[in-house]
């Protein structure tokens, strides 16, 4: 047998990614073990913290909402052959859009305000992704570097705007004026007491719509077809009459708009104001979510839920097991990116050998 047969489809789509994630968690467990803590106990605490009671579930869903948006913002770009590390900054800028419209029309009923906040969050986020997209398409500046730089620029710009312009007189903390209660996106707890006072809010519906929209966009639209063709093979895309320049710019703008939705969840919902550094790494979690979910909306939803549970469970962990901090989650996040992203093929060769042997054994 000279040429190696490709892996069976289910191995490629399901087994390999699951094994990579399991590997990430195993190493995480070993690290926990290494500092003298019981990883199984930690898992128990986290599972209870994330799913064991209503408020916990609410928190898990709140994190999940953020991570879905951030994960989609990375996934979409990845389908078009780009690595968008700028979700963090795009979400931050989205916050500016949300707060500007909310404060301008403060007091309006949330049913009117909610769509407006979505539009403005999307526009501002899209703008912040459009520039790197434009620079990549027209000037050849590498998107990885420019999106990283744009995260930093967003930090400085937003910090100036929040502390110097939006911060009201007589307020000590670095934040904008609050959005009136009637204009804020209602918490799920207002409809279902199960969720208690948890921050989960109606933005999760937007996240679900975004998932469905992205699924449609990637797999069922002409745009998605063009995007994937470009990501797989730019020469073939040009052959198919697809304009790389246009696709890069538009795709990046959509990614930014998705990242901007993180701001709707936080600024328009949970916090009801624009707080300094409110994104708090959610944009970066999106990278792990996207790789783990292999860029597929269903995968993104599942891995966002996993990371949502990890983040909420991690908070809980800090109370019950002082020896473990929630930063363990960041470590696992790193391992997930490493094994599913950079070393995704590490297990492929052993698996191929395994399946090869099975195939040869079957046909002597």
């Amino acid at each position, binding site marked *: 047998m000279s040429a190696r047969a490709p892996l069976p489809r289910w191995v490629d789509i399901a087994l390999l990614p699951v094994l990579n994630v399991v590997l990430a968690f195993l190493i995480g467990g070993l*690290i926990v073990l290494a*500092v*003298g*803590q019981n990883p199984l106990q930690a898992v128990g605490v986290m599972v209870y913290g994330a799913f064991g009671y209503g408020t916990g579930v609410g928190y898990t869903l709140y994190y999940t909402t953020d991570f879905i948006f951030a994960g989609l913002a990375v996934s979409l770009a990845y389908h078009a052959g780009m*690595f968008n*590390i700028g979700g963090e900054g795009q979400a931050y800028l989205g916050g500016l859009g949300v707060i500007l419209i909310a404060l301008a029309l403060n007091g309006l009923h949330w049913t009117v305000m909610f769509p407006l906040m979505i539009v403005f969050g999307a526009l501002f986020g899209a703008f912040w992704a459009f520039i790197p997209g434009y*620079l990549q398409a027209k*000037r*050849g*500046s*590498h998107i*990885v*570097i*420019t999106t*990283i*730089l*744009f995260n*930093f*620029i967003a930090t*400085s*710009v937003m*910090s*100036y705007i929040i502390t*110097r312009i939006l911060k009201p007189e007589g307020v000590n903390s670095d934040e904008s004026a609050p959005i009136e209660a009637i204009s804020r996106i209602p918490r799920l707890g207002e409809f279902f007491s199960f969720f208690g006072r948890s921050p989960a809010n109606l933005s999760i519906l937007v996240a679900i719509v975004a998932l469905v929209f992205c699924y449609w966009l990637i797999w069922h639209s002409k745009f998605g077809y063009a995007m994937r063709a470009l990501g797989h093979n730019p020469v073939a895309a040009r052959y198919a009459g697809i304009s790389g320049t246009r696709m890069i710019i538009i795709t990046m703008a959509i990614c930014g708009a998705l990242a901007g939705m993180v701001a709707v969840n936080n600024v328009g919902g949970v916090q009801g104001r624009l707080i300094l550094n409110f994104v708090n790494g959610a944009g*970066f979690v999106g*990278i*792990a979510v996207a*790789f783990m979910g292999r860029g597929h909306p269903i995968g993104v939803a599942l891995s966002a839920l996993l990371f949502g549970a990890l983040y909420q469970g991690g908070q809980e962990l800090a109370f019950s097991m*002082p*020896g*473990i*901090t929630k*930063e*363990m*989650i*960041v*470590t*696992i*996040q*790193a*391992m997930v*990116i*490493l094994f599913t*992203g*950079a*070393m*995704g*093929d*590490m297990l492929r060769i052993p698996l191929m050998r395994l399946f090869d042997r099975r195939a040869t054994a079957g046909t002597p």
Partner: protein
Amino acid sequence: MQYYTDLILILDSTVRLAVPLLLACLAGLYSERAGIVDIGLEGKLLGSAFGAATVAAVTGSAWLGLLAGIGVALCFSAVHGLASINLKGNQTISGVALNFLAAGLTTFLGQAWFQRGGMTPQLGNDQRFTPITLPFANELADVPIIGGLYSELISGHNILTYFAFIAVPLTAFVLFSTRFGLRLRAVGENPKALDTAGMSVTRLRYQALIITAILVGIGGTYLSVAQSSGFNNNMSAGRGYIALAALIFAKWRPWPALLVCLLFGFLDALQFRLQGIDFPVIGQVPVQAIQVLPYLLTIILLAGFIGRAVAPKAAGIPYTKER
């Protein structure tokens, strides 16, 4: 005279702030010149700062701390090399993963080991790299002009600072005047040229990653064991990324790297200095305006509006011997 003293003080802090940038930038220079993109500089800087502070605190020796700092960076480089050289994976993703790994592990291990919210124990002066007073610094301090310059700006830094500045001509020499440097530059431009001449691309790239680790390890150690006395959460604070920007700005050359790092360090020093000072006409200069300058300048450069930054041609591309 007051202005002169102020200037000397600003320049002095410029030097202090530029050192970790410079070390990380030179580290990145070796790896990118060899064709390996290293977004993970930030993580290596952070990881080695933690490793150095921990070992210095436990053993009481700054030098052992330095070794540990380099050791951590070497481990990170090994993972990066495995992913990007052997497994031919995506170098950017690997670097991003390492940055998160450092951010997560340092805080987690710090809390688990020392229970100080992720910080390492405060280091005493004998556990740190402390300022070295150069000969006659005190004697010359009162001599006008030169005295201040010598005793404040040139004297009174720790050994890692002097090393960082020596590393610049050293790097220039290695890169442009040695056989190793020639091959290093070649492997980042056209690895096939080396392969057809019978040299191992893999070995050269690993060698580059080792040097990268040593330099960035010293940079991390500087942060926690020289500049401060112990490790703080996320104490690299994006310096790894600024170093990358500086590297691009310097067009992957050692002497310009020095200038750019000093410039970025100067901007950093300036923002502390300018806080709360009213200027005629413009009023107060917002801190953020200065913070943002290095990034903006790099973007403008990348967009090709001021000159052109051309990366080593093979950077980011795994080498596969084609059929």
